[in-house]
């Protein structure tokens, strides 16, 4: 036990100067971090716990921490399982009875061991017997109305397709802008930079018109293509490619490589770190994209997960047990990806911050 304590409180200077005392700053630091874990993970954990509660359990106030469901028992002579209650009699006795039916303030109850005799009990004398149970039916039942597989497929197609297209066309443009001198280069770069911060939400109406003209309403292309020419991506990649020495390209040309081959066999592999960062950003943007898909996609077979979940919660505003379950399902894929790649993602994003 003391060894564990020493391990947990060990600090960098240990060994050289012996164990240092905990300072006020250390206590504050770990207090802050632990509060942080509660605040950041708490809401998600509460969502997951709640999603496994029965509808009745969800309506309780104050809510129970764990999903609880009333215990039921099969009783001879009754076709359906009956709910169990602990009954406190006026003489001080306590019994566990099954409820047959409730009539006003009276409940008709039987002893599961002796189902012949019906006992009448005032309802305030009984308390339900509850056990921990995961209401997995929240998940299975909502599948008929929330087409998770379709939405997930659409989301994956949009995210992967858009990211690949973004990486290719952005890197091609960045290659031209960083490695060639041509008329109009500066003008093109300036126009791209000027729109760096203009979001699609500012030009909703005309982009909608363009999409209508192209015939991409209710098509995943309408979600994928408009955001593919990201100014951020061109800017990020160009800045990185500027650091690749031109001599490498020239030696490729001397060896007779075509410009295209120089691009994909020399420049792109060298720009891999910047491409990885852009890929992370693109996946985050596209997976979470909401407003634009909401406008382009109106038929449910084309919904992405976000649009589908929003429509589902709008339809079933009070049926929280279904909405919570599907919310958990929606956050599952990104959580799995993040837990596998979290180191890679966090270092990647941190590296853009300084010079981004």
């Amino acid at each position: 036990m003391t060894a564990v304590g020493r391990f947990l409180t060990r600090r960098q200077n240990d060994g050289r100067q012996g164990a240092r005392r905990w300072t006020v700053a250390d206590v504050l630091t770990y207090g802050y971090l632990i509060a942080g874990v509660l605040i950041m993970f708490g809401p998600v954990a509460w969502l997951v716990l709640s999603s496994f509660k029965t509808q009745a359990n969800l309506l309780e106030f104050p809510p129970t921490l764990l999903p609880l469901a009333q215990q039921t028992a099969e009783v001879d002579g009754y076709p359906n399982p009956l709910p169990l209650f602990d009954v406190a009699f006026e003489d001080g006795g306590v019994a566990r009875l099954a409820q047959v039916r409730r009539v006003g303030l009276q409940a008709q109850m039987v002893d599961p061991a002796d189902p012949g005799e019906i006992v009448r009990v005032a309802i305030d004398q009984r308390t339900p017997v509850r056990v921990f149970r995961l209401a997995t039916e929240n998940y299975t039942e909502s599948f008929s109305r929330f087409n998770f597989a379709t939405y997930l497929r659409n989301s994956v197609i949009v995210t992967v397709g858009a990211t690949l297209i973004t990486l290719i066309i952005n890197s091609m443009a960045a290659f031209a802008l960083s490695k060639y001198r041509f008329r109009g280069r500066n003008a093109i770069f300036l126009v791209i930079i000027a729109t760096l911060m203009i979001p699609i939400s500012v030009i909703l109406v005309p982009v909608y018109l363009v999409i209508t003209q192209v015939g991409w309403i209710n098509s995943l292309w309408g979600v994928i293509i408009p955001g593919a020419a990201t100014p951020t991506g061109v800017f990020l990649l160009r800045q990185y490619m500027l650091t690749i020495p031109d001599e490498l390209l020239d030696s490729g040309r001397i060896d007779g490589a075509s410009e295209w081959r120089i691009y994909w066999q020399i420049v792109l592999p060298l720009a891999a770190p910047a491409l990885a960062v852009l890929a992370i950003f693109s996946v985050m943007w596209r997976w979470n994209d909401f407003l634009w898909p909401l406008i382009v996609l109106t038929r449910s077979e084309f919904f992405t997960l976000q649009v589908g979940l929003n429509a589902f919660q709008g339809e079933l505003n009070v049926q929280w047990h279904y909405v919570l379950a599907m919310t958990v399902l929606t956050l599952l894929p990104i959580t799995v990806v993040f837990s596998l790649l979290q180191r890679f993602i966090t270092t990647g994003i941190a590296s853009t911050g300084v010079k981004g």
Partner: protein
Amino acid sequence: MAATPNAVQRLNALAGDGVQRVYALAMNALGLIMEPAQKLLGVRRMAYLFVLPNLLVFAIFILFPMLLNVYYAMTEGGNLYPQDRPFVGTANFERLYTCTDYGDPNTCLEDRFWRAARNTGVFVFFQVSGMVLVSLITSMVLNRKIVARGFFRSVYFYPVLLSPVVVALIWKWILQRDGVLNAILVGVGLDPINFMLDGTWAMTWVILVSIWAHMGFYTLILLAGLQSIPAELYDAGAIDGTSTTQAFRHITLPLLMPTMMVVLVLSLIRAVQMFDEVFVLTGGGPGSATMLMVQYIYMTGFGTQNPRFGMAAAASVTLGAVLLVATLLQLRVGRGSERHLA
């Protein structure tokens, strides 16, 4: 910009041999177009071919719509096609900006626009200042010598990855009348509050939830900034007997300023554009207490039976102008910070 070699190795390991083969195959296939094109155009003009795909998408889906948007703002009616829309000149803007008293949205012709503008102002001010403060404190805590830094860093970053709809639903569930937060309030002897029916509370929670959802991103950027400050500076300070507060004021803050500016401007622009989380969490309600500018544009142009595309476009031209100013400001600040670093 240097991603760690570790990250690259991981990517390579993940990608593997198969991906490389697919990559080579796809690139060779595209080469069937690009290599004959080089014979046709010559090396110099290949540059145009390389920018073409990006430029085409950019021109069709960003640049052209931007110009068209200005035209839309000068037309009226519910028809989507420009040729069916009567030209009205600056009438939409005049209507948008007509108020008898600019301090009171109720006196404006487009009272919802002004309410949205005011809400956006309140939201941006408190959200951005809260965001910068919380991210700064968190990054400084993470920069201390702590156990399991990677774990804690990921904890704060995790909500960034959650989609806005999921974030909004998580908090809608917590904040509802019979929700867990009210249970806690009752538990400590207070009265429950119907957060979503009170305008001030709703706005407060909209701000807090969006800070919760995005602070991890800015924390990471600030942490990277803190870690790029050379440790020798602090060592030198320690030798000279500098106190912690002095070190913060005279070493940390000035050297972190460029990163702080990046964070400030990025979060500012993102806050002005805020839509999704608020839309799902409150729907702009109660009443229009939390309706922000982008939601006004969406509601005016799309979320209604009688779309007023002209008015939506006029509002978005206004928003675009504000964002353009913010962007120019950032370029200015960016240049300033580069000078600062050099």
